[in-house]
């Protein structure tokens, strides 16, 4: 009893009002929730759904049963899939090299002082700003089999006598979509690299010049090493976007002629959404994942190495 009485009469300290969100750990969690929800809804969920779909025989409107890796076996034995893989690597490789070279060249030019610099820099961005589908439609007309303005120009300049079958010939169709991708991607490289160039102190170049370095040597031994981390990030973004590109090919060729210009994404779309073989479509688009994952890992490791150095 005595003990109980003691407890009753012990004066209690005023109970602190619980303010959960003032605890930094809870606040951090709450602030992270929107991002987690967004990433979960738009990245993790579709990705997991994709994996689940790819191991079933689901067709449009039919959930399908588990079939293991049968879809992957099927697509690796599919000639059009192999063409798509080859095309995707060629498309990504060739466009990235050109985009980097032209973008860097443009960035170096834009980094100089000249009249109308601001206007030119804004103007250069146009291909990147215009919605891709719109600009690609314009290109489609320029490469039109019958009404190509490029052919018209070449013909009137006396450079060709017949028509160039831009989108009807497999190789030319591939070249056409590569041209459009380069046209669209160069401004992104140029502006990003220009931003990188502007962080490089002009004094370094001046010091090198005083030491007698020629322009090429100044670029190669001063500018380029300092620009490399930015370049790697830009290349990383571009490779990921180009590898998974859809719009340009879909609008320009639809993967044709006779499946000659399909990329992963367009072929997955044709099989999954066009023909309604959802599981095969999912398998095709998932086949992209390991490659992209590897690219990201290699490049991120490289960037870290460069930064540590």
């Amino acid at each position, binding site marked *: 009893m005595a003990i109980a009485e003691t407890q009753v009469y012990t004066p209690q300290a005023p109970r602190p009002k619980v303010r959960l969100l003032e605890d930094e750990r809870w606040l951090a969690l709450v602030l992270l929730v929107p991002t987690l929800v967004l990433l979960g809804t738009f990245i993790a969920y579709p990705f997991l759904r994709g994996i689940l779909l790819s191991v079933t025989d689901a067709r*449009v*409107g039919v959930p399908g049963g588990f079939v293991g890796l049968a879809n992957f076996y099927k697509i690796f034995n599919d000639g059009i899939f192999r063409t798509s893989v080859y095309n995707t690597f060629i498309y990504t490789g060739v466009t990235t090299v050109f985009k980097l070279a032209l973008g860097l060249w443009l960035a170096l030019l834009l980094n100089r002082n000249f009249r109308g610099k601001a206007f030119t820099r804004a103007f250069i961005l146009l291909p990147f700003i215009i919605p891709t589908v719109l600009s690609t439609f314009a290109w489609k007309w320029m490469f*039109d089999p019958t009404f190509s303005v490029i052919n018209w120009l070449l013909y009137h300049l006396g450079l060709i006598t017949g028509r160039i079958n831009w989108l009807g010939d497999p190789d030319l169709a591939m070249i056409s979509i590569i041209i459009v991708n380069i046209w669209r991607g160069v401004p992104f490289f140029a502006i990003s690299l220009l931003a990188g160039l502007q962080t490089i102190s002009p004094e370094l170049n001046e010091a090198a010049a005083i030491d007698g370095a020629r322009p090429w040597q100044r670029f190669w031994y001063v500018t380029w090493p300092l620009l490399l981390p930015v370049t790697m990030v830009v290349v990383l973004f571009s490779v990921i976007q180009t590898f998974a590109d859809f719009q340009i090919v879909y609008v320009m060729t639809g993967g044709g*002629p006779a499946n000659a210009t399909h990329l992963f994404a367009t072929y997955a779309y044709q099989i999954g959404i*066009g023909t*309604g073989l959802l599981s095969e479509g999912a398998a095709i688009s998932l086949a992209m994942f390991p490659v992209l994952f590897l690219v990201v890992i290699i490049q991120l490791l490289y960037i870290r190495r460069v930064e540590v150095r």
Partner: protein
Amino acid sequence: MARVTRRNVLKSGAALVGGMAGILATGRAPAFAQGTTVHWLRWNDFVPASDQLLRKELLPAAEKALGIKINLETVNGNDLQPRITSAIQSGSGPDIIMLFNNHPQIYSESVVDLSDIAGRVSEAEDGYYDLCKSNSVDGQKWISLPWTIVGAMIAYRKSWFDEVGSSTFPDTWEKYREVGKKLKAQGRPIGQTLGHTFGDAPTFSYPYMWSWGGTEVEKDGKTINLNKKEVIESVKFMTAFWKEAHDEGGLAWDDTNNNRAFLSQTICATLNGASIYIESLRNPDKYITEKGTQLKTDIQHSPLPKGPAGQFAMHTYFSHVIPNYSKNQDGAKALLKWIHTKANYEPWFVSQKGFATPPTHEWEKHKLWEEDKVMAPFKIAGRLGQTPGYPLPSSGKKAAEVLTKYIITDMYAKAVQGATAEDSVKWAEVELKKIYT
């Protein structure tokens, strides 16, 4: 002005999340989306006047008669399949969707049985043509309601053919190739698509293959025997025919390119619905020949030529499905019933000027067919013509997969691009076997 504090921001954020959670939990948007609105998805008609007629006259009349609202959406024909796939998978979308050829077979599990309406229309209009049943019946029921048949005929320049000594249209592939060679030499090639496009590509490649004796499957519905002499011959012939007589840009054409090429007078002939001729009728002074005459006076229509195994045709078939996710199935059915009564269908049919042949025998008697002799061949398009999957009596899921993958068209396109005939046929046979066995 209220002070912005961290607490306020968090509170309003929580309220927003709560509100969204409410919407997500009930699975429905706020109540304004109630009421019967039937969403009808169709292609952009190649006869634009018909879409105008639907929007301005027929659908307002239907809204009045049925007491529903109708939302008509038109898209590029090649986008209908992606739209229905995503609608079915997401469980929401248009209430009525137009589809081509045997495409409804792909969605048979996800669409409403329309046998009752089909039965009524068929009874009232002297029966559907066989090709309707082949494309629209899944073995037991009508999964789509026949809308129309766009007859595929070769539109050609009469005077240009006359000039090279062909006063009648060549009736065999050999003769057509000879005439085409002469015309291409004059800068007037034949225009034909071998691209991935719903209408003009398969309506050429399938009958062409059949006319040489090739079929995608044998009569048992299982055996694939494509890799044979007749088919290889057909591919070899096509490759040479293409180089000698065709506009080589055709590999990248869709269903609209040949219309533009013909109307701009760069090609002498093309397999098409009658939309080229109808456009030349609509704008007679816009399209003038090199001789100063109206283009419409120089266009004739002919069926595809004969091959060693006979003469064949395939026409583009249009039908409508009601997906079973639709919450307005009754409204959608009521609209289809309404538009398929003779009185309501007739103005639409007349506005097509013969581009569309109705799916039942009854309409062969219509006076429209007597008005213009150039359009007369289209009157009986529904009687002629096979469906993908021929010689099978019914075009099922497998034939639909072959069609949507463009395997037959690609077999010819690959060879025309430079692959050997043997390799192209072998490739197509492997693809067919994957589907049929």
